[in-house]
């Protein structure tokens, strides 16, 4: 085994460590030759706890204690002391030989100098040269979002967040600066140093978050190299502050949720009319229609299946108790939380329930600070299909089921369409189907992080500015799934002849080690900061699953494998997946007089996902900034008081392609049987699972960013404008190869897309007497263009719409990413002559009738390429599921204890493919819109065609993927509206309460959209986003809550 130099050097490191340990105990022996002390208060006279006091140009510093007092040692006579505190204007005060300095700090109205977390460190906002958006934890608690990335929606420009569905606990899709790849577009998440993905942050409670930083440009993300290609989200959890007094707070809310709207579908009478009308239009004789007068008399039911599926007034509640505090040398922050959310569909079958515990501590031992973060969580959930055409989906069944079918007959037996001679394949009584579902998934997680920070400057002045940090993160999670499938016989497609139990256990382990050495030094006006680091990461998972039939108990409670008695039915499986990364990185930050800044980064990553030919990748970046307003020539006015320009360039990677794509593993699924009668045996035939590609390499994204930061009116008004250009190339794709090859295509690199856009963030903060007003506006426009696709067709397509509609989402060179691809329609044939006249004159001058089989009332499809026939070549871009523009508007006002917050989000310029009706099933119910809008004679409709039973062999009105399915789904939403009241401290302190706030909050109260489906917000992967198959809608929620601090 080859060892790195780091390891070889470990003996000398050990010596150094011992030395440092020894030195720590002698720190107190240093002469306290020059000590300064004092008290810090705010402008109302309250003492400020936790103010940072630093000797300027050094790392020598402290924070104020519980009484607002500080003492700082080793302060040179001519030193300048700098005082900083979040929300206060920083001050620099010359010592001038004094030993006591009291300070009064004024509240700031701007955030130019707040600290921003960057990869492996933090930086003052005014010095940042990349494009980093910061969201304070306090912003996140303004909605009752369950996942914290959900709460980021609209808070940062250029980060498009789409809820995949309204199911509790559902994953959210996050796209930073557009879609760069045909594969995984999710950003990398780093939680207190531990890399994870969007699924992996489910244990985080929004009130535990100190801040979230989104690294949008390549230069900022380059420090995460191989995995920064889709951007990086840095999440920092709350820590206690030194000398902070012990705080206990209790936050709770309880809310009720309801669907924000339902669809208007036909009731029994209209339904039967519609079926008869369709039958007659399809050639049926009037006495042979499905619902003759005689039969109508036998139909006694009119079921509103949507209402049956809905769980109105679904409950949601949350309780969080947090403790924070700190002494002069240690801090702690801890919380215990419970959250429970019911879904607004499928009562009892859709919920999410979470307990979390967190403890973050730090302790300083002289030059060394040791910290640990511990998280424990348990999540229990049950879910129903959220957006699925086939089995399991709740709403699609409810929408399509004939209203003439009751839920149950009087004798208590479930009813099905089959009872009415209308077997509808996957569609059947969803209430009955839900009653057979017995499954639950429990996730348990333990995440621990320990680190040690060594500040050598505390040891020897000569080493001032040199720090070493070693950090070790470990996550263990167990996902346990258990289900019981009872015996039932609902209809021939939905039955189970023998009961069974399934248990699945998935173990995930993820750890990483980071070691970083930083050195900060100032030479006059030159400030330099160096970072060198090393990181190793591994994640692996092991699964075990077992199924067995013939269970002796008929319930979920006893659904354990030992209760299943058929030994021959036992099926087991288990697998193991492993992934490692080894990385080295470095960064240089330089600035001159806080005026001219430059940063350069490089990272080298090695990944187990690539073969020896391309195992290692290098990811460089450079960026620079200029604070123009600090130039002497810049006029000193309050009108424009801050101006900065910055620019960056960098490269990032994406290695999210699964494991072992580069080698040829064997598949043994080529099963065949030999032997007669009892001699029959199964042979698991083998072949390579696919063609290997040993030269597989990283997907790379290259991005340039130019931005302006502006402050007006003494920073009451701030604005940031970012312009970017991002090209992602060498996608990891499975390019189609000829089937002549005989085996699956290899994963190859190829294809590229350019995303460019503009982002604007504006803030306006004003304080007038007791009134505080804070307005924030974000907006982003993104445009994408596919530059290359490495196959003969220059096309990738996938995505299924309604039944039989395939390839509706397409990547094509010269077009935006992932657009909807289908036929254009041109209204409805009104007369027989219209059909005859719908011709194309081809190049030979021959007129060709395009839709000879059509009848008046059928849809007119356009021969866009004028080749005299309708074929796939006539399909065109019908719109995009990805918005062109997204924006957020956040309005906060507080006045004498009353606070009001309003947050709007909008996504403009997106389309949705509405695939709600199963047009292959003639007995599917219709929406009122399609039914009432149908063509019924010349001039009655030029949009919706006549009703037909099915039309597959004739005109394909509803089978053909066309613009009839595509709707503008731009929307604006009042995401949250909160009204709160904080009781005067003078009152609450009498009962030992430091702070008491009560509030009422409404979420999704208003949705403005023209989209007629359930919800315009449909996330998903690149080939599934924006396809509505009865998506689980977002709930409208009313919440009552309180925050108490003791």
């Amino acid at each position, binding site marked *: 085994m*080859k060892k*790195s130099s780091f*390891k070889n050097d*470990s003996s000398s*490191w050990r010596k150094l*460590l011992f030395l440092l*340990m020894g030195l720590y105990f002698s720190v107190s022996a240093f002469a306290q030759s020059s000590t300064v002390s004092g008290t810090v208060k705010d402008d109302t006279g309250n003492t400020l706890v936790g103010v940072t006091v630093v000797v300027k140009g050094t790392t020598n510093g402290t924070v104020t204690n519980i009484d607002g007092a500080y003492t700082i040692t080793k302060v040179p006579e001519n030193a300048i002391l700098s005082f900083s505190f979040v929300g206060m204007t920083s001050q620099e005060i010359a010592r001038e030989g004094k030993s006591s300095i009291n300070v009064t700090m004024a509240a700031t109205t701007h955030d130019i100098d707040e600290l921003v977390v960057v990869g492996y460190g933090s930086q003052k906002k005014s010095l940042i040269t990349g494009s980093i958006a910061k969201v304070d934890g306090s912003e996140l608690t303004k909605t009752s979002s369950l996942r914290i990335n959900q709460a980021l929606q609209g808070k940062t420009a250029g980060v498009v967040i789409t809820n995949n569905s309204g199911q509790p606990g559902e994953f959210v899709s996050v796209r930073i600066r557009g879609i760069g790849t045909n594969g995984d577009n999710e950003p990398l998440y780093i939680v207190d140093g531990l890399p994870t993905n969007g699924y992996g942050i489910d244990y985080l409670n929004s009130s535990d978050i100190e801040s979230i930083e989104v690294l949008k440009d390549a230069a900022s993300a380059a420090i995460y190299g191989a995995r920064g290609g889709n951007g990086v989200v840095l999440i920092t959890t709350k820590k206690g502050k030194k000398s902070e007094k012990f705080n206990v707070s209790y936050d709770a809310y309880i809310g009720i949720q309801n669907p924000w709207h339902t669809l208007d579908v036909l009731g029994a009478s209209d339904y039967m009319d519609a079926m008869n009308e369709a039958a007659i239009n*399809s*050639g049926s004789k009037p006495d*042979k229609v499905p619902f003759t007068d005689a039969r109508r008399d036998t139909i006694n039911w009119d079921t509103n299946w949507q209402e049956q599926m809905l769980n109105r007034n679904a409950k949601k509640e949350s309780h969080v108790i947090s403790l924070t505090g700190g002494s002069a040398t240690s801090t702690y922050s801890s919380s215990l939380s419970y959250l429970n959310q019911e879904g607004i569909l499928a009562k009892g079958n859709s919920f999410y329930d979470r307990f979390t515990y967190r403890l973050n501590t730090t302790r300083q031992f002289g030059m060394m600070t*040791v910290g640990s973060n511990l998280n424990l969580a348990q999540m229990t959930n049950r879910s129903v299909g959220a957006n699925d055409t086939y089995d399991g989906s709740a709403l699609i069944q409810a929408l399509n089921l004939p209203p003439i079918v009751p839920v149950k007959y009087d004798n208590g037996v479930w009813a099905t369409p*089959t009872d009415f*001679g209308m*077997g509808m394949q996957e569609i059947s009584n969803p209430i009955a189907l839900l009653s057979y579902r017995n499954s639950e998934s429990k996730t348990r997680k333990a995440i621990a992080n*320990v680190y*040690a920070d060594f500040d050598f400057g505390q040891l020897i002045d000569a080493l001032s500015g040199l720090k070493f940090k*070693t*950090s070790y993160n470990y996550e263990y999670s167990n996902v346990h799934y258990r289900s019981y499938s009872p015996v039932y*016989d609902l209809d*021939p497609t939905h*039955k189970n*002849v*023998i009961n069974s139990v399934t248990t699945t256990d998935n173990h995930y382990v993820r750890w990483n*080690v980071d070691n970083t050495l930083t050195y900060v030094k100032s030479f006059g006006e030159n400030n330099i900061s160096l970072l060198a680091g*090393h*990181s*190793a990461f591994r994640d692996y998972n092991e699964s075990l699953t077992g199924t067995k*039939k013939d269970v002796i108990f008929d319930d979920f409670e006893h659904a354990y494998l030992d209760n299943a008695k058929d030994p021959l039915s036992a*099926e087991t499986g288990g*697998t193991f997946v492993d992934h490692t990364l*080894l990385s080295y990185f470095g960064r240089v930050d330089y600035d001159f007089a806080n005026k001219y800044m430059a940063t350069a980064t490089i990272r080298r990553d090695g990944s187990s996902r690539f073969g020896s030919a391309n195992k290692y990748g290098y990811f460089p970046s450079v960026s620079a900034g200029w604070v123009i307003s600090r130039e002497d020539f810049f006029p000193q006015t309050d009108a424009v008081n801050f101006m900065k320009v910055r620019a960056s360039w960098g490269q990032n990677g994406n290695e999210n392609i699964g*494991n072992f794509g580069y*080698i*040829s*593993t*064997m598949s043994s699924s*080529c*099963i065949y*049987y*030999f*032997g*007669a009668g009892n001699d*029959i045996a*199964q*042979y*698991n*035939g*083998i072949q*390579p*699972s696919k063609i*290997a590609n040993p030269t597989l390499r990283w997907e790379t994204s290259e991005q340039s960013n130019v931005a302006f930061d502006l402050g007006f009116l003494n920073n009451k008004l701030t604005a940031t404008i970012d312009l970017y250009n991002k090209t992602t190339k060498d996608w990891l794709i499975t390019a189609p190869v*000829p*089937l*002549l090859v*005989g085996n699956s295509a290899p994963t190859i690199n190829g294809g590229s897309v350019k995303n460019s856009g503009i982002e604007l963030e504006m803030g306006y903060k004003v304080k007038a007497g007791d009134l505080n007003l804070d307005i924030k506006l974000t907006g982003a426009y993104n445009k994408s263009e596919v530059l290359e696709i490495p196959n*003969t067709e220059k096309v990738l397509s996938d995505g299924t719409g309604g039944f*039989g509609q395939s390839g509706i989402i397409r990547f094509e060179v010269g077009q935006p990413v992932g657009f909807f691809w289908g036929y254009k329609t041109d209204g409805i044939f009104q007369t027989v002559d219209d059909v005859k006249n719908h011709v194309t004159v081809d190049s030979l001058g021959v007129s060709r009738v395009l839709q000879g089989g059509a009848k008046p009332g059928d849809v007119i499809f356009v021969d866009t390429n004028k080749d005299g026939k309708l074929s*796939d070549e006539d399909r065109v871009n019908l719109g995009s599921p990805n918005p062109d523009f997204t924006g957020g508007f956040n309005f906060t006002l507080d006045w004498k204890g009353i606070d009001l917050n309003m947050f709007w989000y909008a996504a403009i310029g997106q389309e949705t493919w509405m695939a709600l009706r199963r047009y292959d099933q003639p007995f599917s119910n219709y929406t009122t819109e399609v039914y009432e809008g149908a063509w019924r004679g010349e001039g009655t409709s030029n949009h919706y065609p006549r009703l037909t039973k099915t039309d*597959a*062999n004739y005109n394909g009105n509803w089978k053909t993927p066309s613009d009839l399915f595509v709707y503008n789904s731009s929307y604006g939403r009042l995401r949250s509206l909160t009204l709160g009241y904080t009781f005067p401290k003078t009152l609450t302190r009498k009962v030992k309460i430091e702070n008491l706030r009560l509030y009422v909050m409404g979420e999704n109260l208003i949705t403005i959209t023209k989209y007629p489906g359930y919800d315009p917000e449909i996330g998903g992967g690149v080939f599934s986003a924006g396809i509505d198959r009865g998506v689980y809608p977002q709930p409208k929620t009313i919440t009552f809550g309180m925050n108490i601090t003791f």
Partner: protein
Amino acid sequence: MKKILLAISLIAILQACTTDFVELSPKVSKLESNAYITENDAMLALTAVYDALSVQNWNFAPIMADIKSDDAYAGGDASGGDMEYWQEQERFNIAAESSAPLNMWNRCYSGIYRANLFIEKAEGIQWKTDGLKTRMVAEAKFLRAYFYWDLARHFGWVPIITTNLPSVEDYKNIPQSEPVAVYSQIASDLLEAEKGCPASVPSAQVGRVTKYAVQSLMTRIYLLYEGFAKPVLGISQDWTSNEGTVINKAYVQTALKDVINNGGYSLVPSYADLFDWTNDQNTSENIFSWQYSELGKSSDWGGWNVNGNFSVVFYGPRSARMLDGTALAEGYSFAVPTWNLYNEFEAGDPRRDVTIFDASLNLASYTTGYQNTGYFNEKFRPRIEYQATGGAAQHNWFINYPDIRLADVLLMASEIFLTDDPAFSLDCFNKVRVRAMGDAAKKSSINIDDIYHERRVELSGEGHRYWDLIRRGFDYAADKINNGYMDVPADAASIADFALPRVFNPQTYGMFPIPATEIRNVNEGVLKQFIPAYK
């Protein structure tokens, strides 16, 4: 404290600083480099070739053949658009974008890849058993011939690949061979398989290719070559292998006598027993069957890794209850027998009720599908009592597909010896007829139409009828195909489903277009449509 810190620092530094930290190898699968060593490995590699033959992938070849013939309608659910590419085939209006030709092409070239890979890897196997390599290579060649035959009869002009190529790019530049060359390749492989395959196999190996299976397939291909390839594709020479061996009438006559006299096969005394699910799937009559079983507990709605007989569920009626109220296993009501087929059976022929399930006599209720005739394929109709409980119920029917059985061989012999040895021809013919209908049904003289009638009633639902029609000339085929389709009772409730007449299009040669995506995925202009209707 010191110790803890030291430990943290050291663990942190030690844990990850080796460069082989990022060199991982899969823990749950073999690699190509260590997978082909023992004779057992060879058996598993050969298994993969057999598997490709049995792949249905939603487009079971015998069903597609039947729905193009006068034996069955496409059917499916009431929409008439379920499996649209079957409905397209039924109307001889097959688009190059259709997935049916694509899946056929995919199955064949996957099988060819696996056969070529086996032949290549056989060289590196540590063989211990005498003659085993020769036999297994012979089996692989039989299977390869089978795949090329499926290509030859469905596409005609196809690229010939007999060794796997180093790079996927190499496959983008292989032109199609003329049909005559494809048939020659088939002949070469079959001749070698005939030499290398054993005359019989022990019980545990039933399902593997025997010499007689090779000879039977050779006869079947010979008939198509003479009746279809020569007149339609314009081939003038006799069927000749690459090495120059000619498989002519004399050759197949010798082969047929070998199968009939020496093969040891015998007709099962009762025709019904052949399709009785309680009986062993491999009878004394089965010469070559595609083996299916429920053992694999398959569940792959993609369709490729289904190892039971998925086609079974396609044949059954939808949501049906028997007269006594019990539910039938759910079916999809595809490939429903035509009235024309029903009427083909002579009065008293017991084969009719073994072949056709009459809903009006057996069912209290069912959901009628498209082109409902009230008839369903009884030979392969799903039986609830045999529905597998592992995997997806639809995927794990254990009924084999009886590709080549003695009755077929006897009737081919009857046809081939009709003029050369009328007595033998008549004897073969009567054996089949008498087994079904008793001695009274024996005929004393026969002509080709008698043989065609007998083949139809004996083999219907098994995917042979269409190819029999095609090889008798397009006029004959068009007459039967079109008129058989339109033979609809005037009072049929589903009469609207037959409103469009069916017109056999001779310009299609009754074949498939080259899949459009395949044309796009090779270099431009390399693959072409040679069949007039698809140009």
